[in-house]
Protein backbone atom coordinates (compact mmCIF):
# COMPACT_ATOMS: atom_id res chain seq x y z
CA UNK A 1 0.00 0.00 0.00
CA UNK A 2 1.34 3.44 -0.96
CA UNK A 3 1.78 5.77 2.00
CA UNK A 4 1.23 9.51 1.70
CA UNK A 5 4.45 11.45 2.17
CA UNK A 6 4.91 13.93 5.02
CA UNK A 7 4.72 16.77 2.51
CA UNK A 8 1.42 15.51 1.10
CA UNK A 9 -0.02 15.24 4.61
CA UNK A 10 1.12 18.77 5.41
CA UNK A 11 -0.33 20.07 2.16
CA UNK A 12 -3.61 18.35 2.99
CA UNK A 13 -3.62 20.05 6.38
CA UNK A 14 -2.85 23.48 4.98
CA UNK A 15 -4.98 23.43 1.83
CA UNK A 16 -7.83 21.04 2.51
CA UNK A 17 -8.99 18.00 0.59
CA UNK A 18 -9.71 19.31 -2.89
CA UNK A 19 -6.49 21.05 -3.76
CA UNK A 20 -4.33 18.24 -5.12
CA UNK A 21 -3.54 18.75 -8.78
CA UNK A 22 -2.94 15.12 -9.66
CA UNK A 23 -5.80 12.63 -9.46
CA UNK A 24 -5.51 10.39 -6.40
CA UNK A 25 -5.74 6.62 -6.32
CA UNK A 26 -8.49 5.05 -4.22
CA UNK A 27 -5.97 4.15 -1.50
CA UNK A 28 -4.52 7.65 -1.42
CA UNK A 29 -8.02 9.12 -1.31
CA UNK A 30 -8.89 6.83 1.61
CA UNK A 31 -5.76 7.96 3.46
CA UNK A 32 -6.53 11.59 2.71
CA UNK A 33 -10.00 11.14 4.18
CA UNK A 34 -8.58 9.45 7.29
CA UNK A 35 -6.07 12.23 7.86
CA UNK A 36 -8.64 14.92 7.24
CA UNK A 37 -10.96 13.31 9.78
CA UNK A 38 -8.06 13.06 12.26
CA UNK A 39 -7.17 16.74 11.82
CA UNK A 40 -10.75 17.68 12.66
CA UNK A 41 -10.60 15.57 15.84
CA UNK A 42 -7.24 17.09 16.83
CA UNK A 43 -8.85 20.52 16.82
CA UNK A 44 -11.47 19.43 19.36
CA UNK A 45 -11.13 21.47 22.54
CA UNK A 46 -10.81 19.59 25.86
CA UNK A 47 -13.94 18.95 27.91
CA UNK A 48 -12.37 20.45 31.05
CA UNK A 49 -12.16 24.23 31.26
CA UNK A 50 -10.96 26.80 33.73
CA UNK A 51 -13.54 28.34 36.09
CA UNK A 52 -15.44 31.34 34.70
CA UNK A 53 -13.85 33.63 37.34
CA UNK A 54 -10.30 32.41 36.68
CA UNK A 55 -8.95 35.80 35.50
CA UNK A 56 -10.33 37.56 38.58
CA UNK A 57 -8.92 34.85 40.85
CA UNK A 58 -5.44 35.10 39.29
CA UNK A 59 -5.51 38.88 39.70
CA UNK A 60 -6.50 38.48 43.36
CA UNK A 61 -3.64 36.02 43.93
CA UNK A 62 -1.22 38.33 42.16
CA UNK A 63 -2.24 41.30 44.34
CA UNK A 64 -1.68 39.16 47.46
CA UNK A 65 1.79 38.13 46.26
CA UNK A 66 2.76 41.71 45.40
CA UNK A 67 1.50 42.87 48.79
CA UNK A 68 3.53 40.12 50.45
CA UNK A 69 6.65 41.19 48.55
CA UNK A 70 6.15 44.81 49.53
CA UNK A 71 5.52 43.80 53.21
CA UNK A 72 8.67 41.69 53.14
CA UNK A 73 10.71 44.58 51.75
CA UNK A 74 9.26 46.93 54.38
CA UNK A 75 10.04 44.47 57.21
CA UNK A 76 13.59 43.88 56.02
CA UNK A 77 14.27 47.60 55.66
CA UNK A 78 12.74 48.23 59.10
CA UNK A 79 14.91 45.54 60.69
CA UNK A 80 17.95 46.94 58.92
CA UNK A 81 17.00 50.47 60.06
CA UNK A 82 16.69 49.37 63.68
CA UNK A 83 20.06 47.57 63.62
CA UNK A 84 21.79 50.54 61.99
CA UNK A 85 20.04 52.85 64.48
CA UNK A 86 21.26 50.81 67.47
CA UNK A 87 24.82 50.66 66.13
CA UNK A 88 24.77 54.40 65.41
CA UNK A 89 23.43 55.12 68.92
CA UNK A 90 26.21 52.99 70.44
CA UNK A 91 28.82 54.71 68.29
CA UNK A 92 27.58 58.21 69.09
CA UNK A 93 27.31 57.51 72.82
CA UNK A 94 30.83 56.03 72.80
CA UNK A 95 32.13 59.15 71.09
CA UNK A 96 30.48 61.47 73.61
CA UNK A 97 31.31 59.38 76.69
CA UNK A 98 32.84 55.88 76.68
CA UNK A 99 30.88 54.83 79.82
CA UNK A 100 27.57 55.81 78.23
CA UNK A 101 28.34 53.60 75.24
CA UNK A 102 29.18 50.69 77.51
CA UNK A 103 25.98 51.23 79.54
CA UNK A 104 23.95 51.29 76.35
CA UNK A 105 25.55 48.02 75.19
CA UNK A 106 24.91 46.38 78.57
CA UNK A 107 21.27 47.47 78.46
CA UNK A 108 20.92 46.06 74.96
CA UNK A 109 22.47 42.73 76.02
CA UNK A 110 19.99 42.55 78.90
CA UNK A 111 17.19 42.94 76.37
CA UNK A 112 18.66 40.39 73.96
CA UNK A 113 15.86 37.84 74.56
CA UNK A 114 13.22 40.46 73.96
CA UNK A 115 14.94 41.49 70.72
CA UNK A 116 15.34 37.87 69.61
CA UNK A 117 11.66 37.15 70.38
CA UNK A 118 10.70 40.17 68.28
CA UNK A 119 12.76 38.91 65.34
CA UNK A 120 11.27 35.38 65.64
CA UNK A 121 7.70 36.74 65.79
CA UNK A 122 8.33 38.99 62.77
CA UNK A 123 9.88 36.14 60.72
CA UNK A 124 7.12 33.73 61.79
CA UNK A 125 4.43 36.18 60.68
CA UNK A 126 6.09 36.61 57.29
CA UNK A 127 6.42 32.84 56.73
CA UNK A 128 2.77 32.33 57.79
CA UNK A 129 1.67 35.09 55.38
CA UNK A 130 3.64 33.50 52.54
CA UNK A 131 2.04 30.12 53.23
CA UNK A 132 -1.45 31.64 53.13
CA UNK A 133 -0.67 33.52 49.90
CA UNK A 134 0.72 30.44 48.17
CA UNK A 135 -2.13 28.16 49.19
CA UNK A 136 -5.02 28.05 46.77
CA UNK A 137 -8.04 29.57 48.47
CA UNK A 138 -10.50 27.09 47.08
CA UNK A 139 -10.63 23.55 45.88
CA UNK A 140 -9.57 23.50 42.23
CA UNK A 141 -11.45 20.39 41.28
CA UNK A 142 -14.60 21.98 42.64
CA UNK A 143 -13.84 25.11 40.64
CA UNK A 144 -13.54 23.10 37.43
CA UNK A 145 -16.75 21.20 38.14
CA UNK A 146 -18.47 24.53 38.68
CA UNK A 147 -17.27 25.75 35.30
CA UNK A 148 -18.53 22.63 33.57
CA UNK A 149 -22.03 22.86 35.06
Amino acid sequence: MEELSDEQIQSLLENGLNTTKEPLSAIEQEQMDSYFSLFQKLKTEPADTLPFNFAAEVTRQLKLRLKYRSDLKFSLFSALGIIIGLIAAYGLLSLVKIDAGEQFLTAMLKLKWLLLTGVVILSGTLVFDLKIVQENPYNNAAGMDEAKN
Partner: protein
Amino acid sequence: MFDEKEIVSKILRGDFRAFELLVGQYQKLVFFVVNRLVHHLQDKEDICQEVFIKVHLALPKFQFQSKLSTWIARIAYLTTVDHLKKSKTELLVDYPESIDNYHFTDDSPELELMKKDTAAYVNKLIEKMPLQYRTVLTLYHLNEFTCPEIEQITGIPEGTVKSHLFRARRILKEKIEHDLKN
Protein backbone atom coordinates in the same frame (compact mmCIF):
# COMPACT_ATOMS: atom_id res chain seq x y z
CA MET B 1 -9.79 44.58 19.39
CA PHE B 2 -7.03 43.28 21.69
CA ASP B 3 -4.01 45.56 21.38
CA GLU B 4 -1.07 43.66 22.90
CA LYS B 5 1.27 46.65 23.20
CA GLU B 6 -1.33 48.87 24.83
CA ILE B 7 -2.38 46.16 27.29
CA VAL B 8 1.25 45.42 28.20
CA SER B 9 2.07 49.09 28.76
CA LYS B 10 -1.06 49.46 30.93
CA ILE B 11 -0.04 46.43 33.01
CA LEU B 12 3.45 47.84 33.43
CA ARG B 13 1.85 51.03 34.77
CA GLY B 14 0.11 48.89 37.44
CA ASP B 15 -3.33 48.48 35.84
CA PHE B 16 -4.77 45.22 37.22
CA ARG B 17 -7.89 45.49 35.04
CA ALA B 18 -5.60 45.27 31.99
CA PHE B 19 -3.91 42.22 33.49
CA GLU B 20 -7.31 40.58 33.94
CA LEU B 21 -8.01 41.24 30.25
CA LEU B 22 -4.69 39.63 29.30
CA VAL B 23 -5.51 36.56 31.40
CA GLY B 24 -8.94 36.32 29.77
CA GLN B 25 -7.35 36.54 26.34
CA TYR B 26 -4.70 33.84 26.87
CA GLN B 27 -6.21 31.51 29.49
CA LYS B 28 -7.43 29.07 26.83
CA LEU B 29 -3.98 28.89 25.24
CA VAL B 30 -2.32 28.21 28.60
CA PHE B 31 -4.95 25.70 29.65
CA PHE B 32 -4.61 23.72 26.39
CA VAL B 33 -0.86 23.34 26.97
CA VAL B 34 -1.16 22.44 30.65
CA ASN B 35 -4.16 20.16 30.14
CA ARG B 36 -2.34 17.91 27.68
CA LEU B 37 0.84 17.59 29.74
CA VAL B 38 -0.60 17.18 33.23
CA HIS B 39 -3.03 14.40 34.06
CA HIS B 40 -4.07 15.43 37.56
CA LEU B 41 -7.11 17.66 37.36
CA GLN B 42 -6.45 19.65 40.52
CA ASP B 43 -2.88 20.52 39.45
CA LYS B 44 -4.03 22.04 36.16
CA GLU B 45 -5.61 25.20 37.55
CA ASP B 46 -2.76 25.78 40.02
CA ILE B 47 -0.23 25.61 37.18
CA CYS B 48 -2.29 27.96 34.98
CA GLN B 49 -2.44 30.44 37.87
CA GLU B 50 1.31 30.17 38.44
CA VAL B 51 1.93 30.75 34.72
CA PHE B 52 0.04 34.05 34.70
CA ILE B 53 1.72 35.25 37.89
CA LYS B 54 5.09 34.48 36.26
CA VAL B 55 3.92 36.34 33.13
CA HIS B 56 3.13 39.42 35.22
CA LEU B 57 6.46 39.32 37.05
CA ALA B 58 8.46 38.79 33.83
CA LEU B 59 6.50 41.28 31.70
CA PRO B 60 8.98 44.17 32.20
CA LYS B 61 11.59 41.98 30.42
CA PHE B 62 9.33 41.24 27.41
CA GLN B 63 10.70 43.18 24.42
CA PHE B 64 8.14 42.13 21.72
CA GLN B 65 10.85 40.19 19.89
CA SER B 66 8.33 37.34 19.55
CA LYS B 67 4.54 37.22 19.61
CA LEU B 68 3.09 37.65 23.10
CA SER B 69 1.20 34.36 22.66
CA THR B 70 4.45 32.49 21.86
CA TRP B 71 6.15 34.01 24.90
CA ILE B 72 3.24 33.09 27.20
CA ALA B 73 3.10 29.57 25.73
CA ARG B 74 6.82 29.17 26.45
CA ILE B 75 6.28 30.17 30.09
CA ALA B 76 3.33 27.73 30.27
CA TYR B 77 5.39 24.90 28.75
CA LEU B 78 8.44 25.48 31.01
CA THR B 79 6.29 25.85 34.14
CA THR B 80 4.47 22.60 33.35
CA VAL B 81 7.68 20.68 32.63
CA ASP B 82 9.13 22.07 35.86
CA HIS B 83 6.03 20.88 37.74
CA LEU B 84 6.35 17.41 36.20
CA LYS B 85 10.01 17.24 37.23
CA LYS B 86 9.19 18.27 40.80
CA SER B 87 6.12 16.10 41.26
CA LYS B 88 7.70 13.01 39.64
CA THR B 89 4.17 11.65 39.32
CA GLU B 90 4.41 11.54 35.55
CA LEU B 91 7.28 10.30 33.48
CA LEU B 92 8.98 13.09 31.57
CA VAL B 93 10.94 10.81 29.27
CA ASP B 94 8.63 7.94 28.48
CA TYR B 95 10.81 6.42 25.79
CA PRO B 96 14.35 7.50 26.52
CA GLU B 97 16.02 5.39 23.81
CA SER B 98 13.95 6.51 20.85
CA ILE B 99 10.39 7.72 20.87
CA ASP B 100 10.26 6.87 17.14
CA ASN B 101 9.73 3.29 18.29
CA TYR B 102 6.62 4.25 20.21
CA HIS B 103 3.47 2.28 19.53
CA PHE B 104 0.19 1.94 21.36
CA THR B 105 -0.08 -1.00 23.72
CA ASP B 106 -3.25 -3.04 24.20
CA ASP B 107 -6.43 -1.16 24.93
CA SER B 108 -7.64 -0.73 28.47
CA PRO B 109 -11.37 -1.37 29.17
CA GLU B 110 -11.75 2.40 29.60
CA LEU B 111 -10.47 3.00 26.05
CA GLU B 112 -12.75 0.29 24.68
CA LEU B 113 -15.75 2.12 26.12
CA MET B 114 -14.70 5.42 24.56
CA LYS B 115 -14.41 4.22 20.97
CA LYS B 116 -17.94 5.36 20.10
CA ASP B 117 -17.04 9.00 20.73
CA THR B 118 -14.12 9.39 18.30
CA ALA B 119 -13.02 12.87 19.48
CA ALA B 120 -12.87 11.74 23.12
CA TYR B 121 -11.15 8.53 22.03
CA VAL B 122 -8.48 10.49 20.12
CA ASN B 123 -7.90 12.70 23.17
CA LYS B 124 -7.50 9.63 25.36
CA LEU B 125 -5.03 8.11 22.89
CA ILE B 126 -3.01 11.35 22.86
CA GLU B 127 -2.87 11.27 26.67
CA LYS B 128 -1.09 7.92 26.39
CA MET B 129 1.54 9.21 23.96
CA PRO B 130 5.05 10.42 24.95
CA LEU B 131 5.29 13.99 26.23
CA GLN B 132 7.04 15.27 23.08
CA TYR B 133 4.24 13.97 20.84
CA ARG B 134 1.54 15.38 23.11
CA THR B 135 3.29 18.76 23.15
CA VAL B 136 3.71 19.17 19.40
CA LEU B 137 0.23 17.87 18.60
CA THR B 138 -1.34 20.32 21.04
CA LEU B 139 0.73 23.33 20.07
CA TYR B 140 0.26 22.71 16.33
CA HIS B 141 -3.33 21.55 16.05
CA LEU B 142 -5.07 23.06 19.08
CA ASN B 143 -3.09 26.24 19.68
CA GLU B 144 -2.34 26.66 15.97
CA PHE B 145 1.32 27.59 16.34
CA THR B 146 3.68 27.09 13.40
CA CYS B 147 6.69 24.74 13.56
CA PRO B 148 9.21 27.61 14.02
CA GLU B 149 7.03 28.99 16.85
CA ILE B 150 6.93 25.52 18.47
CA GLU B 151 10.73 25.53 18.32
CA GLN B 152 10.74 28.88 20.15
CA ILE B 153 8.32 27.58 22.77
CA THR B 154 9.84 24.18 23.49
CA GLY B 155 13.43 24.50 22.34
CA ILE B 156 12.97 21.37 20.20
CA PRO B 157 14.60 21.92 16.76
CA GLU B 158 12.12 22.61 13.95
CA GLY B 159 13.09 19.46 12.04
CA THR B 160 12.44 17.32 15.11
CA VAL B 161 9.12 19.11 15.70
CA LYS B 162 8.06 18.19 12.15
CA SER B 163 9.14 14.59 12.47
CA HIS B 164 7.36 14.22 15.84
CA LEU B 165 4.27 15.74 14.30
CA PHE B 166 4.22 13.43 11.27
CA ARG B 167 4.99 10.34 13.31
CA ALA B 168 2.41 11.15 15.99
CA ARG B 169 -0.29 11.76 13.39
CA ARG B 170 0.59 8.59 11.50
CA ILE B 171 0.41 6.29 14.52
CA LEU B 172 -2.82 7.95 15.63
CA LYS B 173 -4.36 7.47 12.19
CA GLU B 174 -3.28 3.84 12.02
CA LYS B 175 -4.57 3.13 15.52
CA ILE B 176 -7.95 4.73 14.80
CA GLU B 177 -8.30 2.94 11.44
CA HIS B 178 -7.40 -0.37 13.06
CA ASP B 179 -9.79 0.10 15.97
CA LEU B 180 -12.72 1.32 13.92
CA LYS B 181 -12.43 -1.67 11.60
CA ASN B 182 -12.51 -4.08 14.58
